[in-house]
């Protein structure tokens, strides 16, 4: 009975946080497969060892995901610059859940996000889908909260511009 409850508990958590963590992981890995490896490692580590720690679960999980991504890169000798990683992001797999209405718009947003500078996209993802505050993002990325907020505003503005252009051409 207890085992069953525990199982339901982690599945509930994974269903809630898994999609967001995967999206965050994709900012720091080169393929969906790598991102899934990283999420697996981070989530299992969190669930086994860290879930009793004080603090926001999502912030702890994001930190764990980021560390796991860097560990993976180091292990596999893939330490490349952030820009190189961004250019090689696997864009064949949908980043967002497809819905019947507005699927074209979703695709346009995904494409526009791919064209954002990596450091802006990373802040955007952590803020919107990681649900972190600028303070938490600053701590995570080792930048000031003001820098995080600026990158976020630049990202939104660039995204708006990209989408406008896409509307004009499409």
């Amino acid at each position, binding site marked *: 009975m207890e085992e069953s409850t*525990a199982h339901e508990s982690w599945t509930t958590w994974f269903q809630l946080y898994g999609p*967001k963590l995967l999206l965050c992981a994709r900012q720091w890995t080169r393929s969906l497969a790598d991102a899934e490896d990283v999420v*697996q490692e981070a989530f299992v580590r969190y669930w086994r060892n860290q879930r009793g720690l004080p603090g926001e679960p999502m912030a702890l999980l994001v930190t764990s995901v980021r560390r796991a991504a860097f560990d993976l890169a180091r292990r596999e000798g893939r330490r490349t610059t952030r820009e190189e990683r961004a250019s090689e992001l696997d864009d064949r797999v949908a980043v967002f859940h497809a819905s019947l209405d507005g699927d074209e718009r979703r695709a346009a947003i995904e494409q526009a996000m791919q064209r954002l500078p990596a450091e802006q996209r990373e802040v955007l993802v952590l803020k919107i889908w990681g649900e972190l505050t600028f303070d938490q993002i600053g701590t995570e990325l080792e930048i000031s909260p003001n820098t995080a907020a600026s990158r976020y505003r630049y990202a939104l503005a660039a995204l708006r511009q990209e989408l406008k252009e896409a509307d004009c051409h499409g």
Partner: protein
Amino acid sequence: MDEDLKLLEAELTRLQPAAPSRALFARVERQLGAAERAPVVPLRAGAGAARPAWFWALSAPLAAAAALAVMFTRVPTDGRAPSARAEMARAASAGDDSATALKPVAAENVLYAASDEGFVTLDDGTPARRERLRYVDTITWRNPRTNASLTWSVPRDEVRIVPVLFQ
């Protein structure tokens, strides 16, 4: 932030990130599902310290003792990287009777970098080569009753001076 950007922000917030694949779920389940017997932490925002403060207060000295044991354990000097699963955790088992009842179950040394830092001359004039080996030592404790576990990872640098013999 202008209204236009706020609308875009709201639109982005409504987008749901794609769910992880079934394969990933199955992999996590293999790792957590069957073996998961730990006490359940209720799902709530900002889940705080589910374990009482005494848990951490008693675990920390144990962890520190084990970390010291790892650092002072003699490392074989035959040129091979130390293998995993050393038995050093046994040395850290002092205090098992404490209220935590956590028992060391595994200790690993992982060598992740090695570099040759060149020649040095010892005090007696003997030439030697200096090597730097970088490890992460990881010790795991487990409470057999509740299956709660504690993992402690310590980075460690080891410098070896190897005399050079010219023939």
